[in-house]
């Protein structure tokens, strides 16, 4: 025993996979002391009606997010590049299925 101070709770983001084969989806966030505890609370807070088969918890501070003011440089350049979409190409007739 040393004179330890109570640690402040950390914020975690919770991701749940609802069915095998589907992706994990962000469902919300919660406070916990560490990742193990966050996983247990995620079970209690977000899977009470058997919503999931797998849970991820991620320290919220570890998430690097894009900023809204960067939208112009992030997304707009894609709009004038239709050749990046498969629908841009006209298929030759002999190709029935693709």
């Amino acid at each position, binding site marked *: *025993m040393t*004179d330890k101070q*109570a640690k402040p709770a950390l914020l975690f983001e919770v991701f749940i996979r609802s069915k095998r084969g589907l992706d994990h989806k962000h469902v919300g966030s919660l406070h916990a002391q560490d990742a193990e*505890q966050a996983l*247990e609370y995620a079970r*209690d*807070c977000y899977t009470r009606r058997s919503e999931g088969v797998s849970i991820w918890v991620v320290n919220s501070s570890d998430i690097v997010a894009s900023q809204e003011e960067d939208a112009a440089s992030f997304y707009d350049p894609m709009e004038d590049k239709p050749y990046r979409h498969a629908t841009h190409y006209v298929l030759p007739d002999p190709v029935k299925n693709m």
Partner: protein
Amino acid sequence: MMNDKQPLINYVIALGDDSMILGQRLSEWCYHGPFLEEDLAITNVALDFIGRAQMFYEYASKLEEGARSADDIAFLRDTRDYRNLLIVELPVGDFAFTMARQLIVDLFNQLYLGQLAKSADPTLAAIAVKALKETDYHLRRSHDWVLRLGDGTDESHQRIQQGFDQLWGYVSELFVMTADESQLLAEKISVDRSALRDDWDTQLNSLLNEATLLRPDTDWQLSGGREGLHTEHHGHLLAEMQFIQRAYPGLKW
């Protein structure tokens, strides 16, 4: 209403009472948990115990051929007819006390239900299998909290140690066989509680050690719950739990 099933009925109701009273106690944390996430988690556990009580009472009602419903058994018996162990009826105390009690009970339940799952009575075995899954989770929680609080701050350490010290006099009752249980044990229906003590002690000692806590050294031991001799807290608990059915008999949810 005495019949040859009476020992089994008594046994099933006593197991139901342990779950019912502990579930009621834990539900007192609803809206009072130390923080939101824990509030949800602990009331989840409370619901598990109430659901478990319901399964035992439904079975008792069936054994009684419907003389009383599960609700009658829960809400229309007085203190002296309740057969729960004393440890589960003690007031919730602080959060550390609550978690110390959960650890004591969860550790016991894991051992007990593991044996009950092999009961010659298929209904009891099925209830045990279902309850065991919940208990594994309950124990992970209480185990985790005892470590956190024991090896946490000076304040948390002192509170959880105090919790175990206050509860210790109620522990031995967990391992005492009633006459009904002994009779049913011969038929391989019940579980030999006394035989679980060594495993329980070993696991508890190792956890206390890890949590930097001391095994209490209490020389007094109380019992009487199985004979309906309860602490002064039991009547107050029933008064709150049974109020609606007493005030509005037969009221449905």
